[in-house]
């Protein structure tokens, strides 16, 4: 009787241990999808490389808004960009056309626009100093001098002064 119980308990304990060990050992294969969000957030960026693609380098934050057409931070303007180099790849000098309109949809003429940016996860800025070089009419502006020298998450920020002042940050995630 007691021998039977001991056998069952030992077998159950061994199986449970095996399942727990398996859960841990198989983690590199199935990725962190079963991790509690609290644990996932506290994982260092340089965690050991597994097979999962998103672990190849510091991954951009989840839910990053990479839309190319958005309202500015204080919703003063709606701004969109299109790149001469499409898709944007690394190590190539290129230009963008920036379109600025009011939140109501009227093109914003002759705004003063400053460009900045960088890689928040690496702590460095842009490798060039892009500038708005020309107003093309109908709320369109030519931005020259863009070049990104590595893959990963980039921010490109525009500081816009027209009838009012506002800022916007576009996010790009580049490969390579």
């Amino acid at each position, binding site marked *: 009787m007691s021998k039977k119980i001991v056998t069952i308990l030992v077998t159950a304990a061994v199986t449970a241990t*095996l399942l727990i060990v398996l859960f841990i050992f198989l983690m590199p294969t199935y990725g962190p999808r079963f991790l509690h969000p609290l644990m996932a957030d506290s994982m260092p960026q340089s965690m050991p490389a597994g097979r999962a693609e998103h672990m190849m380098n510091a991954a951009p934050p989840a839910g990053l808004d990479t839309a190319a057409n958005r309202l500015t931070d204080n919703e003063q303007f709606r701004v969109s960009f299109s790149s001469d180099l499409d898709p944007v790849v690394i190590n190539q000098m290129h230009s963008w056309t920036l379109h600025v309109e009011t939140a109501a949809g009227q093109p914003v003429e002759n705004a003063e626009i400053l460009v900045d940016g960088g890689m928040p996860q690496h702590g460095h*800025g842009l490798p060039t*100093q892009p500038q708005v070089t020309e107003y093309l009419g109908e709320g369109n502006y030519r931005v020259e001098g863009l070049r990104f020298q590595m893959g990963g998450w980039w921010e490109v920020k525009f500081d816009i002064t027209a009838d009012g002042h506002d800022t916007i940050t576009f996010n790009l995630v580049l490969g390579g």
Partner: protein
Amino acid sequence: MSHPRQLFIILALLGIIGLAAAAYAWWPRPNDWTAAERATLQTLGLDSLPPLPADPSNRYANDAQAAAWGEKLFFDTRFSVNGQVACGTCHLPQLGFQDGLPLGKGVGQTGRRTMPIAGTAYSPWLFWDGRKDSQWAQALGPLESAVEHGSSRTQYAHLIATAYRDEYEAIFGPLPDLTGLPAAAGPVDNPSARAAWEGMSAAGQEAVNQIFVNIGKAIAAYERTLLPQPTRFDAYVQAAVAGDTAVMRDLFTADEVAGLRLFIGQANCIRCHNGPLLTDNDFHNTAVSQAPGLPEDLGRAAGAPQVLADEFNCLSAYSDATSEQCAELRFILAEGEQLIRAFKPPSLRGVAQRPPYMHAGQIATLEDVLIHYNTAPTAPAGHSELEPLNLSPAELEQLLAFLQTLNE
């Protein structure tokens, strides 16, 4: 509970299946690459190298006659103050166009490591600090450096007139009259040559500058033809892109594959060593130490103002480019902390064959370079882009094995 024995067997089977699954997941399959990894590998292979970019600042860039003549100049030691130094003295073809020394040695000793040349036609910036923005402008720097070729532009103009008149005129048209031109004059360190240069008329200076510039443009036409050669790594990338495991296994050992996996992943190498040339041709502070006995080297922070002020830059009268074609110079990042002690990463192609390493040959072996990146010391000045990698000695060995697959 009436059949404990059956239950035991079921649980044991479950355990065995679990162990088998774990073994399957952990069994080394080094040549398995995800689609994203294959895409990254493809960007690094030589097949991804675009066609040679135009050099609008040099109208002779693709002139075969200029290239053939430029090759002669490259190896002609008469282009020096002592008749013993040519470009090829430090850029030795048999050593991948570098010299294997910590610091280049011309007529004196320079403060920097000699850089390899292959593929520099793709770079917007030349030298470790990018103080030149074209191959032809770069070639002119050492010719007038007191510790490299050590002479001056009027001496070179005289040499062209006596030794190369026909070849020069066939490419560039008639040489101007050089009578009365000082034997040695140029905006150089040597006080008498500098005084002689300052004593010349503006028209005389311009005529000499044109000859000097044409020398640079011919040498650049030759240097443009120096391109990286396919390596075992490039063959592996082709096999990886095609998904041909048998060929991959033939080409790379397990250590080399593991090293490549670190290279594109955990070791962060491709942040800077990206694209088919394995360099982004930009500028990075990687906490390399100040070389003992040399003046403080600020890297790009000093090079950026120099290229903006350079009399032979893309926007100069001697450049054949329109200002629209000089985007790199017009939108140069010329200020800021990220330029301090930032240096250009050389191509990693052939890297294992080119010790010592860094901009003043500070690190003797590739093993020690990897230890440097693994430990990420603090930069002597400015802000280092490195973070400690915490790779094991075995992983560093794997990276080292991989880097040798880039031998040419």
